[in-house]
């Protein structure tokens, strides 16, 4: 079976890759483009570790096919910091110790960024609901919520 040639944009850069029909966007990012920041925790849409933005919308990249990225724009954790400068969410995650093993962290940061793009001033409950699909086995969560609230406040200039 011939592979598909996909032309897309990842973190603002034009990229191309070859993929198989069943290959997920997650595997294309990780194995074809060596962007390993998005993680595979379940491959069934249940853990959020593979979260990326597709045309600005938060998706589980394990549930998106590589070919579906054709002509669209993908944003991953690798595009979050501006050079050496961390995004406020990344900085607040470090300050609040909102990560341990770090395997869930890229997915949570991408999801949190998507939340703040929609709602710059979320309530704690809104943060908890929004991130309920991002499983973390290590941290105890509370610090994650605090870090997101704190980053939101900073980004609002509050």
């Amino acid at each position, binding site marked *: *079976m011939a592979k598909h040639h996909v032309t897309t944009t990842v973190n603002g850069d034009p990229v191309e890759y070859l993929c*198989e*029909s*069943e*290959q997920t966007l997650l*595997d294309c990012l*990780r*194995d074809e483009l*060596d*962007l*390993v*920041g*998005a*993680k*595979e*925790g*379940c*491959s*069934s849409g*249940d*853990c959020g*570790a593979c979260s990326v933005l597709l045309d600005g919308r938060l998706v589980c990249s394990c549930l998106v096919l590589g070919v579906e990225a054709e002509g669209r724009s993908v944003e*991953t*954790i*690798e595009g*979050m*910091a501006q050079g050496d400068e*961390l995004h406020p969410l*990344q900085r607040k*995650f*470090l*300050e609040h*110790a909102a*990560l*341990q*093993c*770090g*395997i*869930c*962290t*890229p997915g949570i*940061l991408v999801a949190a960024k998507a939340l703040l793009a929609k709602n710059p001033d979320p309530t704690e409950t809104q*943060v*908890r*609901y929004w*991130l*309920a*699909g*991002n*499983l*973390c*086995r*290590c*941290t*105890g*969560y*509370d*610090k*994650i*919520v605090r870090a997101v609230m704190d980053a939101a406040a900073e980004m609002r200039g509050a």
Partner: protein
Amino acid sequence: MNPQAIGKPLTRIDGRAKVTGAARYAAEFNQPNQAYAVIVSSTIGLGRITGIDPAAEHLPGVLAIISHLNAPRLPYNPHKGGIDPSYGERLHVLQDDQVRFYGQPVALVVADTLVRAERAAAALRITYDAQHPIVGPRDKQAKPIAPEADGRLEADNVRGDPEAALASAAVAVDITSDIARQNHHPMEPHATIAAWDGDRLTLWSKSQFVANEQEEIAAVFGMAPENVQVICPFVGGAFGTSLRTWPHVTLAALAARQVGRPVKLALTRRQMSFTTGHRPRTLQRMALGATRDGRLTSIIHEGTGETSRYEQFIESLTSGTDFMYSCPNVRTRYRLVPLDTGTPTYMRGPGEASGMYALETALDELAYKLGIDPIELRRRNEPRIDESTNRPFSSRSLMACYDIGAERFGWAKRTPEPQSMRDGRLLIGMGTATATYPAMQFPASARARLLADGTAEIESAASDMGPGTYTSMTQVAADTLGIPVGRVRFSLGNSDFPPAPPHGGSQTMAAVGSAIRAACLAVQDLLVERAAANPRSPAHNMGKEALEWVDGHLRRKGGAASGQSYAEIVGAAGGVPVEATVSVARDPEIDNKYSMHAFGAVFVEVSVDPDVGIARVRRALGAYGAGRIVNPRLARSQCLGGMIGGIGMALMEHTSLDARDGRPVNAHMAEYLLPVNLDIPDLDVLFVDEVDPHVNPLGVKGLGEVSLVGMAPAIANAVFHATGRRIHELPIRIEHLLGV
């Protein structure tokens, strides 16, 4: 040592790599020309393979289909790491037609892409001759056995006459409990990339114990250990499941050898439910006898855990009971039920998490029978020494934990009567329980190297599955050498480094931290020799006794001069780095002299919705006495993670097996319930200022396990307080609480 870094809440040194996606985990070391392997798992729970249809071999991209029919016979030389069950023999994978449990690897498909390997694995037809497996300890055909003595744990311990004391006790409780099988389910699935170069094998493999993985794979393949290198700089959570080396590592290496290419093999989330260990289901009886004023007169603890047919997995289920409270008459008994499932393994707080559940819920029930506050009951039975060994505790701050915890939590506001506290229509309950875990320390080694630029490189084959090993070890090295943390670079997760013990049992700080401290001191001694031998050095011809290290400078003892820096000493000797490798084991005298454990007091507030029977944790607080806290920010973080592990154990986690064939019916993240962001309330962690001069030179006891232990009983006790219903089964589910 003048602590500048130790005790400071530094942020995580590996944090930047993790928040930017730059940190590389095992599956992320893709190799040129890499092929992909997929394990085919058995779909029966017991029996034998009668046929494998070779048609799938001809599917596009398939490089090999390996099964017992064509796999080479592997040497499987005897090898047991400290982490392997001492009785029984590990699973030999693809070596015969026997199926011992559901999900056992029965074939391996290797193809040039993952998609093609998965396609062929799905197409592979295997026929079986199936028998009926026994997969539950309550099955009538399941027979408990006494574990073969393995020296680590006595199966039966008795002091006094507990039966007679129980029969004559003024007040008694006698309860049984049943705690579900759990899987670790770290968010990173197991994965191994194997690459051969002649007869040398490199494994990028998820492991909490790279030194053991190296030795185990060398034994399986009959190789010299120095020809195997295991690399694992980051572990995406593990909680015990990556301590042993499981069959998939062997399979990855085998596949790579068969197809002559590097091979990546990652387990699916489903496969994480049956081939890589689990917390064994336990059945327990706990009987307590006491005087009217609440002095314990008898404790009888009988516990049974699951194991497999081919290995006896032993955990310290009853150990906490032996010493936790003062009582003249105590009997603990431990049994195993061999089942047709894979071998269980250590899971966060192994043994104590389940055993302390039985003890602490029984104690709560006794408190109600006596009409005594549960904390007061524990205070009345606080022992002066460890009565099971007659050794003093190296330190024990349990009551201090209760005091500061109760104060901060607001325990005094609790009205003891069940169902007496409400918030609108919700029933509110508060519960408390004791946590404990031994302060272990296995032998460990480390290397310290001082470079000409005055920076230090530290190496040890330790792991960091998230608690902050990178950071805390850097703090220890920086303070021992008297230099800023920014001048220390610590590397771990490589079997070429000096060996370290398993990253489990809450001992990494004690074991590896002690080794790093010793290696830093040893390198300082070498530098003193260098300086003394150098005629131009102010320390020329001076002995160690006449010199001292102050803030990373060597000077005459008590002298006013700032002395020579590391860079100056190394530079004067031609700039060749100076290094020392040191192994450290705990002084056996200390083990014989003291009983060494971390302790904690856990407080929980739950709400129970009486209409739908849902219990939720609203607030929880853990107060711990665990020796010196090296990094309060990361220590707190680790404890919070342990506490929610306990919430999962109490209210959600349960790997449910189909009794017909042992198939886990909830082998995915949608139905293996874990706490999510929305489930987790306000959590608080406190540390008692505990100074333990005996346990190790750093005075640390470890936190990873003790922070999970105690949560489940505290929650169950809170549920009783809320509802008046004592649930003796974990997890506590809606059906237990309907109609309260």
